[in-house]
């Protein structure tokens, strides 16, 4: 195998990984502020994709649709936090995780049920012709996706330097101290859920363009979880770099191993990444270690 094949797998893999990172960013934001692992992020991505498609089906341009989608999903995130998560404060983590799983199932039934199950297509105005650098073909939609992901990560990093972002950082450190200083933890958690909804719009639109908006967008949860574990559940930088690593490994390794094995090994690679990370360094590359005290 020559170097161009490797470079191509590398490039497309990195871009795909950034797109997974977009989904992971939502999970990280929620975990940072409330300690809840949001298993329904995949369903939120699907819902965001459907919402954007719904806006375009009313005749709006893709940009207007995305803008409206951002507002809608922000409110959606707020509502979920207020209605469901608020009453689960203090419950064991398994209950909250199951709650998000229940929400995932519910959304998977509700949204395609109402809006229709046949795949809807979104078009962000990028053609299909690949970008050719030397002998390396780069998928244009993936390139746009990678750029959008990087933009979202940059926005997140900038956001955390603002006043509101500092409050969120305080809340993610310690709830009790934040209360004692006068920061409203409830508002901060609600805000993080809203922001996760916004990330879901980015992911939903890009992935919806790549594969069509359909319930299978919820399957993005699994690679996103791998990204989050590898990078550290509460680290944004970890989501970015972890995304790139998961994407690259998930593209390069199957590229070489699949012909030998005769089957697709991408899910296996993702599973092994999760397992190795948990066995060797459970908190991921940049995660903060959880010290349990007696």
């Amino acid at each position: 195998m020559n170097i161009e094949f490797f470079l191509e797998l590398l490039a497309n893999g990195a871009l795909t990984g950034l797109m997974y990172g977009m989904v992971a960013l939502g999970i990280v934001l929620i975990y940072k502020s409330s300690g809840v692992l949001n298993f329904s992020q995949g369903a939120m991505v699907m819902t965001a994709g459907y919402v954007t498609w719904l806006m375009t089906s009313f005749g709006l341009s893709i940009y207007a649709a995305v803008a409206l989608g951002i507002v809608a999903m922000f409110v959606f995130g707020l509502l979920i936090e207020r209605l469901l998560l608020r009453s689960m404060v203090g419950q064991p983590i398994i209950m909250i995780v199951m709650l998000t799983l229940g929400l995932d199932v519910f959304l998977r039934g509700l949204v395609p049920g109402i809006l229709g199950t046949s795949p809807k297509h979104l078009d962000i105005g990028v053609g299909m012709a690949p970008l050719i650098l030397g002998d390396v073909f780069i998928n244009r939609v993936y390139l746009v996706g990678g750029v959008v992901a990087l933009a979202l990560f940059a926005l997140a990093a900038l956001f955390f330097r603002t006043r509101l972002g500092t409050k969120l950082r305080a809340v993610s450190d310690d709830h009790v101290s934040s209360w004692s200083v006068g920061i409203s933890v409830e508002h901060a958690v609600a805000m993080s859920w809203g922001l996760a909804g916004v990330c879901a719009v980015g992911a939903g639109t890009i992935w919806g363009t790549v594969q069509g908006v359909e319930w299978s967008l919820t399957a993005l949860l699994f690679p996103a979880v791998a990204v989050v574990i590898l990078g550290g559940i509460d680290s944004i930088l970890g989501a970015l770099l972890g995304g790139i690593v998961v994407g690259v490994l998930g593209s390069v390794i199957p590229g070489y191993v699949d012909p030998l094995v005769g089957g697709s090994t991408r899910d296996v690679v993702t599973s092994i990444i999760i397992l190795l990370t948990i066995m060797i360094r459970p908190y991921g590359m940049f995660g903060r270690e959880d010290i349990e005290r007696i």
Partner: protein
Amino acid sequence: MFYRLSGVHHTRYASARQLWPLPADRWQVAAVFVLAVAAPLYMSDLYLSSYMLPWLVWSTATLALTLLMGVAGQLHFGFGAVMAIGAYTSIHLTQAGVPFELALLVAGLLAALIGCLFGAAALRVKGLYLVMATLAMQFLVDWVIVNVKAISGGAVATLQAPAVEFLWIPVDTLVARYYVALLWAVIVTLLMLNIKRTSFGRALVAVRDKDFAAAVIGVNIFKYKLLAFFTSSFLGGVTGAILAFCFYRAVTPQQFSFDISIQLVAMVLVGGLGSTIGAFLGAGFVLLAPIVLLNIVAPMVEAGWLPVSASLMAHIPLMIYGAMIIGFLLFEPLGLAKIYDNARKYFLVWPFRHTQS
């Protein structure tokens, strides 16, 4: 009044510490047992094969998982894979001519050994990370089963269960299959009822509550966590084999996917973590509630009272299932077992209002 509490005195430790100290409880259990054994006599074939049999087998699986999650406190989101290992092993062994009983045992042992590998992750991490590790293992096992032709049988990917005999009685009619499933359910139920009265069960509870404190008082956490995974996976593997032989009579890789693992966890949580009766109630509820509600909604839609398209109709069970999980976790986190317990305590002292417990 219903339970006839007055006059129940125990003068020996043995009788005070039995599973059901009240005679009323013992009569209830006996009645339920008789009803279960006599089911083929009064139940139609449809009810027996479509509702009772799967309910029994899934309750047993839930019991196995609640042993791990409720009693030992180890979260396991990959139990479907454990059941799959048991099912596939038993099918291959019986196709090779091994007697059914032996095949079940070996299937359980193999599932237990591989389940211990899953458990090795539990030695390293807890809580969320354990969830993730078991999830990853579920996908790995799924992939191995689908892609290793020797296991899954190639592109056709459906292995039929051969005709078997259990203790020299051929397991071919519905009634025979029902009794095999019932026997296994009774064994596992007895095990679960008594588990907390053994030192093994007490050690598991100690590990669940605070494992380093348990280590301080001399419980070997390493050994007991692995043992919990071993036992639970053994029970799960045999249950998977029973499911394959008694209900599906074939195995396909999709039967034990990630969705099934989540369904099992939902059954455990809806029923109540660690509770035996909760396992039965939870399994029944999760299995039957979507069907029941759909059967109520469907005639309404056909009669035109509710304007709902066929596609939305098909999604309603999914929505009900999700809403049910959310509802239980929000309003009754301790599950159906707690609701049953509340009702029982109410009737225990009726017509008086206050109980001692």
